[in-house]
């Protein structure tokens, strides 16, 4: 039978794992820029570089990279639109901030000297970090792909700018849902031990 091992000593492991998951999944694992790995020849600026992307960037890194490639490709022919097209890149960066918020909330909540940190709290923090991180990862993928398509299409048809922004806002909201659930879950972490 369970020999009285309650596992409370291992609780901070799960808490910190949650904080790490929130940050790693939403920001950055390691990301390569397409320019460094596959230098483009001047004739190739229309080729779909996305098929040659082999990197494990996550979330904000993917969003920044994918839409940044689109901006760079588009900017060759329409340099005046580049500053307007930075919007998807900025929105992808915000995802990293969401992960940072949850990671800070979790890591300041792990303080066994101030308040006992039980297994329940550890798992609540793990769940919170995973929820925020995975949602940020997904939203980053969506922002990257939609941003890439959007900036390229905006260069050809200026009426599409508003439509692109609307779709990007819906994609950004996904990461916000993850942040909300993450904050709710990490607030449960203090409520353990019905002894």
């Amino acid at each position, binding site marked *: 039978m369970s020999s009285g091992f309650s596992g409370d000593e291992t609780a901070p492991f799960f808490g910190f794992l949650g904080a790490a998951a929130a940050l790693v999944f939403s920001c950055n694992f390691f990301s390569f820029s397409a320019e460094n790995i596959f230098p483009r020849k001047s004739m190739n600026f229309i080729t779909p570089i996305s098929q040659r992307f082999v990197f494990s960037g996550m979330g904000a890194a993917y969003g920044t990279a994918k839409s940044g490639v689109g901006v760079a490709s588009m900017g060759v022919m329409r340099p005046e639109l580049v500053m307007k097209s930075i919007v998807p890149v900025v929105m992808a960066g915000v995802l990293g901030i969401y992960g940072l918020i949850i990671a800070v909330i979790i890591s300041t909540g792990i303080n066994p000297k101030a308040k006992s940190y039980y297994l329940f709290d550890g*798992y*609540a923090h793990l769940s919170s970090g995973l*929820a925020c991180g*995975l949602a940020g990862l997904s939203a980053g993928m969506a922002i990257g792909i939609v941003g890439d398509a959007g900036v390229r299409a905006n260069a050809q048809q200026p009426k599409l700018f508003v439509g692109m922004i609307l779709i990007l806002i819906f*994609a950004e909201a996904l990461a916000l849902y993850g942040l909300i659930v993450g904050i709710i879950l990490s607030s449960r972490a203090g409520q353990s031990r*019905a002894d």
Partner: protein
Amino acid sequence: MAGDTATWAHSLAKISPYTFSAIGIAVAIGVSVLGAAWGIFITGSSLIGAAIKAPRITSKNLISVIFCEAVAIYGVIVAIILQTKLESVPASQLYAPESLRAGYAIFASGIIVGFANLVCGVCVGIIGSSCALSDAQNSSLFVKILVIEIFGSALGLFGVIVGIIMSAQASWPTKSA
């Protein structure tokens, strides 16, 4: 535990129900949002590409993006419901059968909702993408393909219903038990 021989059942029963609950809640929101994001980028990239030559389709076809967003909202709702079911039990009862059952129920509910919303989001996204492309060619097709999309979005609702019914099973043992 019955018997002294080591079986796989012992290793399963020694995993804390808090583990299962935490993973279940994270999967409920995380995988639902993955489905929604997948659908949004499938629809969004097609919509934006088709709108280059037919910019009139943009505002009507945003409804496909909204259907995908609804999938993420289902995931949020169920994750919030599940986290209210998450309770702390005294350490002596952590591995009691009733509390293991509660942990498994929350895990299962999360898996149900998460993966149902994942496939729903992908489905609605693919339909929305072809809806945009065909609307750009012939605007009478929009409403007809939207009907197909509504059938697709029902999949996520099925997942939410079953997940909520399953989460009602998650009753932790009380202190007196």
